[in-house]
């Protein structure tokens, strides 16, 4: 359940940003999560709720922005869609793929009052 560690890191960034901006309350968190990243959206959402309990971010709406996976296919010489690690190139069916997008775990923004 490494999502708990990730949620803790998320809370630290959210809390620090909220404090610097003199927020009284964090209303929502916009979070970019790549399709090929190391976190499960529901587990992360739940873990954040637990970590934020009793804090300035308690009850904040957790909005996940999914970022699709992309990879550079060496034989095709172009970027292709990669829905999951280990999936073949949709064009040539090969696996000579280098991930170029989709491993993001990034806090995009927060909404505060």
């Amino acid at each position, binding site marked *: *359940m*490494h999502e*708990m*560690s*990730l949620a*803790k*890191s*998320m809370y*630290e*960034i959210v*809390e620090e*940003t*909220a404090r610097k*901006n003199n927020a*009284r*309350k964090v*209303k929502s968190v916009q979070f970019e999560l790549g399709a090929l990243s*190391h*976190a499960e959206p529901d587990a992360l959402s739940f873990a954040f709720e*637990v*970590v934020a*309990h*009793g*804090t*300035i971010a*308690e*009850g904040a709406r957790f909005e996940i922005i999914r970022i699709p996976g992309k990879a550079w296919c060496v034989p095709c010489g172009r970027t292709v869609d990669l829905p*999951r*690690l*280990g999936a*073949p190139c949709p064009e040539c069916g090969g*696996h*000579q*793929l280098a*991930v170029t997008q989709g491993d*993001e*775990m*990034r*806090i*995009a*923004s*927060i*909404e*505060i*009052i």
Partner: protein
Amino acid sequence: MCSTCGCGEGEVRINDIPLHDHEHSHDHDHGDYHHTHRHVHAHDHGHAHHCGHGHHHHDHPSLSEASRMVEIERNLLERNDAVAQENRRLFQDRALFVLNLVSSPGSGKTSLLVKTVEVLKKDWACTVIEGDQQTQNDAERIRATGVPSVQINTGKGCHLDARMVRKAMDNLSSLSRGLLFIENVGNLVCPAAFDLGEAHKVAILSVTEGTDKPQKYPDMFHEADVMLINKIDLLPYVDFDVEQAINYARQVNPAIKVMRVSVTTGEGMDEWCDWLIACAEKACQVRDNDIDALRKRVADLEALLKQQ
């Protein structure tokens, strides 16, 4: 897990000494939230209405204020990655070749390390950082070979992070010019996300597991640079297809280097140890080149000063 915040740090111990320095805050500051209750809600239920009991759903004056968006764009792992980079610099400065060994529980990581350090210790300084939820057992197995070992106990934690390794390095201040093996917690999921500052992650897959492990746990095999197929002496007795396992691993990571070993018979250990020695020699060479470049720079600067 830390009982206050659930952060998973509460029970981390290094050589049985608690780590819990709690850099993060438990400051449950509810701010002005309590003090914005200027009007009385028509709540029939008789409990005191404290923060967190569903106010978000009410049309509450304090929450109807205009909200503002603050752009952040920060990576969740930025702290871990920053400490991992510090570790990497430390390892380079000390000419250490560092591996992060990851696998399911029971793949034979510790036995492999015991055998490996027995071979290498004649010529190389070797050290092992052991990660387990509980017990000093693995560190004791390593120490029995005469090689130093630091045990990190993660308590309820499911992986090592860069900060734990940095703290463990405090116990290894004299270690230089050699090999450092970090045996992660037996877990094919969580350790994939956490850079410790290693040169390579090495995923160990034993033939008593399923051939399709690389398909089932693609994150780890994608992050690893090396896959060791262990317990190959048992191949006649198990239903494990080595070539298919390699194919599966290359589907998630076409560049993964594969070696086959048996700790029991010693088969493949030469290839593994030769690779380790070549990498350790390279780490020393890189450091020597850095030192030579620094010496040359110092000499150049001193010459420049004399001219002044």
